[in-house]
């Protein structure tokens, strides 16, 4: 009878269920199915799905590919507030770009064009990092040993920040990167 006593009916499973309760169970079930189907629907028709293209890699192998990309596509250098030179790299239209996450910077600065689709490779040289594109607000985990290839098409232009939003040690808060979209 009470929640702190054994059920008073010996065959409690056979007790009838009130109509309102059935109704709520049915609503909860249907709502659950709608939410389940929404994720699948978005995979088919939605325009914002995180890519599943990922590879196992090593920091060395990834850095080599990224450095090659930077060497071939750098358009200019910028001096950061900390006095360090950072290359600005123009990703070829519809091409592939590489972004390195490491203690404690995003390297290099990428330059994109609005409306073009890019394949951006993400990987970490050391700890976990968090790719948090602001103020767009796209957040992707960056894991060492994994190369994640994300297809993205900027729909707005301007200067965007990449905040690191996975704790990566004492300099975590200074890990701020940049993406330009023309």
């Amino acid at each position: 009878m009470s929640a702190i006593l054994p059920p008073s009916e010996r065959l409690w499973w056979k007790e009838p269920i009130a109509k309102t309760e059935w109704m709520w169970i049915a609503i909860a079930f249907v709502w659950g199915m709608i939410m389940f189907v929404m994720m699948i629907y978005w995979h088919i028709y939605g325009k914002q799905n995180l890519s599943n293209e990922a590879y196992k890699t090593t920091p060395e192998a990834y850095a080599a590919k990224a450095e090659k990309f930077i060497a071939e596509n750098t358009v200019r250098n910028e001096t950061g507030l900390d006095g360090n030179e950072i290359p600005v790299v123009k990703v070829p239209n519809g091409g592939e770009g590489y972004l390195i996450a490491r203690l404690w910077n995003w390297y290099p600065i990428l330059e994109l064009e609005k409306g073009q689709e890019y394949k951006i490779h993400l990987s970490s040289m050391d700890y976990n990092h968090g790719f948090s594109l602001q103020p767009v607000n796209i957040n992707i985990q960056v894991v060492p040993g994994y190369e994640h290839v994300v297809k993205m098409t900027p729909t707005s232009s301007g200067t965007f920040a990449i905040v690191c939003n996975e704790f990566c040690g004492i300099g975590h808060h200074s890990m701020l990167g940049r993406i330009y979209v023309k």
Partner: protein
Amino acid sequence: MADNDNDDVPFMQKLLDNHFLLVVIGVVSPTVLYTLWGIVDIMNTPLAK
């Protein structure tokens, strides 16, 4: 209560009263769906070219 008294107990009630069976299914279900399948996914990640 003699055993034959329980013949009329519905299957689901018997299941919910079988605590150790619940322990087993409660551990096996996430182990298979989450952990083992997850390991398979990670193992199947190809090497970068």
